[in-house]
């Protein structure tokens, strides 16, 4: 106990930083979200209550953002994880060119989101001069051209999901290939001697062995997808509300700085709602992963 203060002293720098840049803003956000009619210019407010939450929850833009975010999460997390698993299995079973493919699959991770968004836009966008490459392909197969960037909702959602999957996959492939490589080959040799069918090897040996990593990827995938924003800007521009492709984080940003900006109270309320959603989903995920037998 005597030298206890010394320990705290060592922790002080980190605690100061965390306090200033994490704890204080968090508390501030909580306070903002309950201050009704807060004016950032005069720093005044009318009263304290739940009006901000009520406003946000009734704002059609917010509801659209929630819908978009949830769709994005539900579509991209399972698909990207599943695809990453397939690709990792493929990578793991080939020897020649494996390093090359690994690099190729990892490229999106090191590429700038906005730059890649631009590429996607060029691929999918339909302008007065060109239909875009994808539409040309659709034409070649005798289909009707679709404007993926300014067109129907499903088309925009499709591009957005595709883009998100493409962006998040490299990390998942990286994690899963190393997880697969770390499974002791003796298990596979034992399974071979016992004439285990391939499917059974995958479901009864490989999957359980790498399941901790899969759970990790699903949980971080959920969290990441709920926080999606910059990818949407890259594809659809800054006015996401107009495009109908806003996300919850985008909504928060717009409330703070967008055209309709200057509403920190609404932004705070929306942010806290997002926090509650992510917390709930993560808890559910953790519970689900705990219920499985220990490996």
């Amino acid at each position, binding site marked *: 106990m005597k030298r206890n203060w010394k320990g705290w002293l060592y922790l002080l720098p980190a605690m100061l930083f965390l306090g200033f840049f994490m704890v204080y803003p968090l508390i501030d956000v909580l306070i903002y979200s309950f201050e009704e009619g807060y004016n950032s210019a005069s720093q005044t407010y009318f009263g304290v209550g739940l009006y901000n939450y009520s406003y946000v929850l009734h704002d059609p833009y917010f509801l659209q953002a929630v819908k978009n975010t949830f769709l994005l999460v539900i579509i991209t997390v399972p698909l990207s994880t599943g695809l990453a698993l397939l690709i990792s299995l493929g990578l793991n079973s080939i020897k020649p060119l494996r390093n090359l493919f690994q690099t190729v699959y990892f490229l999106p991770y090191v590429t700038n989101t906005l730059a890649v968004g631009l590429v996607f836009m060029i691929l999918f966008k339909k302008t007065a001069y060109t239909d875009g490459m994808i539409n040309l392909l659709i034409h070649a197969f005798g289909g009707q051209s679709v404007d993926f960037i300014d067109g129907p909702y499903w088309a925009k959602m499709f591009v957005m999901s595709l883009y998100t999957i493409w962006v998040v996959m490299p990390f998942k492939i990286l994690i899963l290939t190393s997880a697969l490589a770390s499974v*002791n080959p*003796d298990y596979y040799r*034992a399974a*071979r*001697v*016992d*004439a285990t069918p391939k499917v059974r090897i995958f479901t009864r040996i490989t999957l359980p062995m790498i399941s901790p990593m899969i759970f990790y990827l699903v949980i971080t995938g959920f969290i990441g997808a709920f926080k999606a924003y910059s990818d949407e800007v890259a594809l659809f521009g800054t006015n996401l509300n107009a495009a109908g492709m806003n996300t919850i984080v985008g909504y928060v940003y717009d409330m703070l700085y967008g055209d309709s900006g200057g509403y920190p109270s609404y932004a705070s309320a929306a942010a806290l709602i997002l926090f509650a959603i992510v917390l709930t989903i993560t808890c559910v995920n953790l519970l689900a992963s705990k219920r499985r037998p220990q490996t």
Partner: protein
Amino acid sequence: MKIVLEHLTKRFPNRNKKVREDVIAVNDFSFEIPDGQLIGLLGPSGCGKSTTLNLICGLETPSSGKIYFGQDDVTNLPPENRGVGFVFQNYALYPHLTVLENILFPLQNLKGQNRPSKEDMLRRATEAAKLVRIDSLLERRPSELSGGQQQRVAIARALVKMPRVLLLDEPLSNLDARLRLQTREEIRRIQRETKITTVFVTHDQEEAMSISDLIVVMKDGVVQQIGKPQDVYDDPVNLFVSKFLGTPPINVFAGRVRGGQLLLGDDAVLPAPGIPDQEVWAGIRPEGFVPDANGALQCDLIQVEVMGRDTSVVCRHGACEQAIRAIVASEARPNAGETKVRFALKPNKVHLFAKATEARLSA
């Protein structure tokens, strides 16, 4: 099931790419393993014993040569069609499955007509578990078992599909000394009860000698000697085999044969009838020394270690690079205070090997 290995050879490409020459892990191995016997493949690390086991199992395919199980040529069969049970060095038990699920695993892989009913599977799994005496642990997971218990589960898993051949890779190397003793007797018992032809790999000569019907001593991919443990010990074909078997190891002297006498240093210690004059290695087993005031071999006494039943006498002689270790009966032990000790030698415990070839010399 009789196993026949015919001119079995396995080459691996050299890891070091500058060297074009292949690494020969197993070189021209021919041997017929009689039905229902326990065979110990013995040799130092890297001698090709594990590769031989993998070849018999089918995890590796031979570069040349043939393998027969009984009359069937299994050389090109994959392991799953050979009917072998394999126990891995690290057991390779599936950590997320219980003991019972682990043992059931091979049975659940069976298809079509061979697939037993659920009750049948359970019965066979329990039988296998009983055989290796782990039937009270069926609901546990491997991580909750001791090393010896895990080993038994691995054996049960290998036995449950009633293999024609049981293969064990270093079955005892992951166990502590006490468990090792217990488990090796257990392996012997299980093998006797099931009468399955069993091959196991070890680098521990004591382990191999104690439970095997036959031992195969290998070095650098080449079989040195095959025989009953006692025969190989008593009658080694070359210096390597004589050095590899026995604890404490054999004492090797640089000597020569002159006029039918074995000379160590300047002492004529033993008649060597019928052996032409030449430089030799003389290997003398620790139990081949008999303290004798008139003995022919005189050594400088270093130390006397009392072990109860026997006494270990450590001494030096000019013709032997290492310290000599002799095991003598306790009542005949020299006094610790003396500086010299004289031994007579038991002729059947002294083996002579040609200096250059290290092959056994006999009349």
